[in-house]
């Protein structure tokens, strides 16, 4: 799998594709993500059957998601970047394709407040929270997040140094 | 730097073996001397007690209760040391010489601990359970013959008494499991009932085969039957499998590994006695060790000729044999992993019960042909 094959398969759904030392890197839009993932998962030339990793970061202007997927049969790595606006951070969930990414999606919601459309717990913030307490307020990895000590060490943000 | 890294297994020194042997010999010597002490000085007292049956029974009961409590002290120390030896460590070392008083210290600690009763527990049941467990194990000691004379009460139906009484401790276990209002306790209690009831069946059948061969239900009677030859040697084809089944069943009856499912620490925290603390917990503990000693003693009575033996006093022989069986049980406990509940049940009903049925048939044939 390399950038050429991906361009051939995905066509205009790709924003950019390049071969990097340890992976092939592509950039897609949030709207296309699910169709791209479904395609790459089932296409015999890519066969991305292994759930790798999802993470995201807030640059202050937008939120950039980073997906890493592997193919066990072909032995290649694909990384995907998806950029979404900060005030409407919504991407389709891919946990139906790779159930292992379920918890990574939950973690991304937990830390950055990204809504994963199609995730089984998407409408239930308490079940969606994974590392932080269920009643935590705010998303700590957002750049505008200000930790406020709530007074109760069990609920909400705590005093930080 | 290498000195610390290269320190390999420490070989057991000859001095340690010598010390162990000399201590054993000393203990046996002291025990042998006990019957030769001037007991006749107590004659006025004993004859006074003997005149009143009620008083006599009370004195017997007091002796048995004290013995059960005291043997636990030694037994627990022994178990800890044995475990330490098997696990390449030293065991308790700080309280008393070689940690001999560690159990005493633990007992004192348990006595001083707060007695916690969970808020929503079924209080009467919760309070009653430790005694329901402890009393049956105490009662069984009444018929255990240490020698022909040292028997609390020589019942003619001793074997039946033992079986019926020891089974009632299940009630206590279930009371503890239910009364604690704890899901782990409940699961442990349910497991305990399934296990104890199932393993009672082959145990009864095996004991019955011994009874059939001996022609008596009195435990002293069974021992005197073996005067010429111990049961295990007299009918080896019958009694060796019988002993193995008996051993497995008693391991299950006293909840020891590999049958410690009711209190499986890694699954159920502590099983049916999770919520118990202080003295109530000590009662469960005491009952467990008393049961253990009793099962070993019963095995000796049934298969290894009880107190019979040459040279040493009868009580010493009995204790030595019992200790051997106890060591066997400890060996098993500290070596084997735990069974799963379905494996344990299927082992009982698919292997042990048919085997003991076959044994009882064989015993009947052997008994007739005698």
């Amino acid at each position, binding site marked *: 799998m390399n950038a050429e094959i991906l361009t051939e398969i995905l066509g205009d759904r790709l924003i950019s594709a390049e071969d990097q030392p340890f992976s092939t890197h592509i950039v897609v839009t949030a709207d296309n993500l699910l169709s791209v993932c479904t395609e790459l998962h089932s296409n015999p030339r890519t066969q991305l059957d292994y759930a*790798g990793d999802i993470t995201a*970061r807030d640059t202050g202007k937008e939120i950039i998601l980073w997906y890493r997927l592997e193919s066990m049969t072909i032995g290649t790595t694909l990384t995907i970047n998806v950029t979404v606006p900060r005030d409407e951070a919504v991407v389709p969930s891919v946990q139906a394709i790779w159930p292992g990414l379920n918890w990574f999606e939950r973690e991304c919601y937990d830390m950055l407040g990204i809504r994963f459309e199609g995730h089984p717990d998407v409408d239930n913030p308490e079940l969606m929270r994974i*590392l932080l307490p269920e009643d935590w307020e705010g998303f700590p990895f957002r750049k505008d997040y200000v930790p406020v000590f709530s007074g109760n060490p069990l609920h909400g943000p705590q005093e930080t140094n | 730097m290498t000195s610390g890294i290269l320190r390999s297994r420490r070989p057991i020194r000859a001095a340690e073996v010598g010390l162990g042997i000399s201590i054993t010999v000393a203990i046996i010597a002291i025990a042998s001397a006990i019957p030769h002490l001037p007991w006749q000085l107590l004659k006025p007292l004993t004859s006074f007690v003997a005149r009143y049956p009620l008083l006599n029974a009370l004195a017997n009961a007091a002796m048995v209760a004290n013995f059960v409590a005291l043997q636990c002290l030694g037994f627990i120390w022994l178990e800890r040391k044995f475990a330490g030896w098997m*696990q390449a460590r030293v065991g308790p070392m700080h309280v008393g010489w070689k940690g001999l008083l560690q159990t005493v210290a633990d007992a004192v600690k348990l006595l001083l601990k707060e007695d916690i009763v969970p808020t929503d527990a079924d209080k009467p049941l919760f309070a009653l359970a430790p005694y329901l467990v402890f009393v049956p194990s105490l009662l069984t000691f009444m018929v255990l013959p240490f020698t022909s004379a040292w028997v609390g009460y020589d019942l003619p139906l001793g074997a039946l008494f033992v079986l019926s009484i020891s089974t009632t401790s299940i009630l206590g276990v279930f009371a503890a499991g239910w009364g604690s209002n704890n899901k782990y306790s409940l699961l442990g209690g349910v497991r305990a009932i399934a296990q104890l009831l199932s393993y009672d069946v082959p145990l009864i059948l095996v004991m019955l085969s011994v009874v059939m061969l001996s022609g008596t239900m009195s435990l002293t009677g069974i021992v005197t039957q073996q005067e010429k030859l111990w049961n295990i040697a007299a009918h080896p084809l019958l009694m060796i499998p019988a002993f193995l089944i008996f051993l497995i069943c008693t391991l299950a009856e006293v909840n020891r590994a590999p049958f410690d499912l009711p209190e499986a620490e890694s699954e159920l*925290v502590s099983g049916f006695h999770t919520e118990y603390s202080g003295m109530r917990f000590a009662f469960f503990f005491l009952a467990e060790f008393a049961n253990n000693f009793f099962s070993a003693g019963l095995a000796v009575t049934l298969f290894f000729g009880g107190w019979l033996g040459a040279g040493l006093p009868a009580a010493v022989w009995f204790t030595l044999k019992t200790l051997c069986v106890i060591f066997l049980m400890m060996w098993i406990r500290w070596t*084997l*992993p735990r069974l799963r509940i*379905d494996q344990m049940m299927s082992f009982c009903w698919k292997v042990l019960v048919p085997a003991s049925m076959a044994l009882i048939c064989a015993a009947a044939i052997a008994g007739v042909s005698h």
Partner: protein
Amino acid sequence: MVNTATTEQRHTVEVNLGPQHPSTHGVLRLLVELDGEIIVSCRPVIGYLHRGLEKMFEKRSYKQTIPFTDRMDYCASLNGNLAICQAIERLGGLQAPERAQYIRVLLCELNRIASHLVFLATYATDIGATTVFLYAFREREKCLDLMECMTGARLTYNYVRPGGIPQDLPDGFENGLNCFLDDLLKALEENDRLLTGNRIFRGRLEGVGVVSPEMAAAYGASGPVARGSGLNYDVRKTAPYEVYDRLEFDVPVYHTGDCMARYLVRIEEMRQSARIIRQCLKDMPAGEIMCKMPKIFKPPIGQAFSRTESPRGELSFYMVSDGTPNPARVHGRTPSFVHLGMLPAMLPGVKIADVIAILGSLDTVLGEVDR
């Protein structure tokens, strides 16, 4: 007395396994729905050990992130050090000298042995064989002694640096290491006789918690969990880092996918690690152990990720640089986190005793799950 709920005419009991439970190896809470002894459903609740390490990374310079990785997988912290250092090196275009790479591999494998010994000890205890615990920890003790004389710490090593390692091997290390490996192989044989062949032990593990290769891939399982289910996936072979491509070793793969397979993979991995260590000692070249590093390390803007094979599976770090001395974002993809996510799919239908067997066979470290 117990909260019972009728679901589909079935009376089930909800039991909290944890957060304080002897067998969850940390503060993991499993919300388990029980029908008698059978599990109906399970929901792992994690986060009790969450320290916000990823957030803390953003406030530290690149070098200062290393000690935090010690606190993730505390059973094999050197592998964590290596993983983040690799991410930093890839971001900054650094390359550690050859000798440093050999020493890194050597220490990682030593750490893998220590970690697998902890697994052996705790797993045997979970199954009820308490004695194995002490035997395994006796060997681990020697291993930790070696690590201590190398790195100065017994558990949280903080040893690997971006661009190399801070210190060379001390005197007498090779000798001690060889003695330890001899002892270890003997102890493993002893363990095979005591535990692996035990019928009760096999009966408890065989056919329990089966993971198919497809499921392992779809759930992102890695390390012994993947290799126990027939997925021949070892980062040391598929994407070799450091000098693993120059070393000869086998990747044990078992196809049954049950707890026994995962156990056997780990036991065999210890032997392979011993083999790798011996090769490292033999092949190690003399020379530098640290490459040239600027005083204030500012990698160019970009993103990089590292993939390493930690004892638990694939440990990778994703790192983003915005050109400042502090990383803009660090994310650790920790294998325990992924493996715990498999539990809701693995547990329904098994007995409560199997929960412990399955959970133990995943060999999770909660410090790594919660980060």
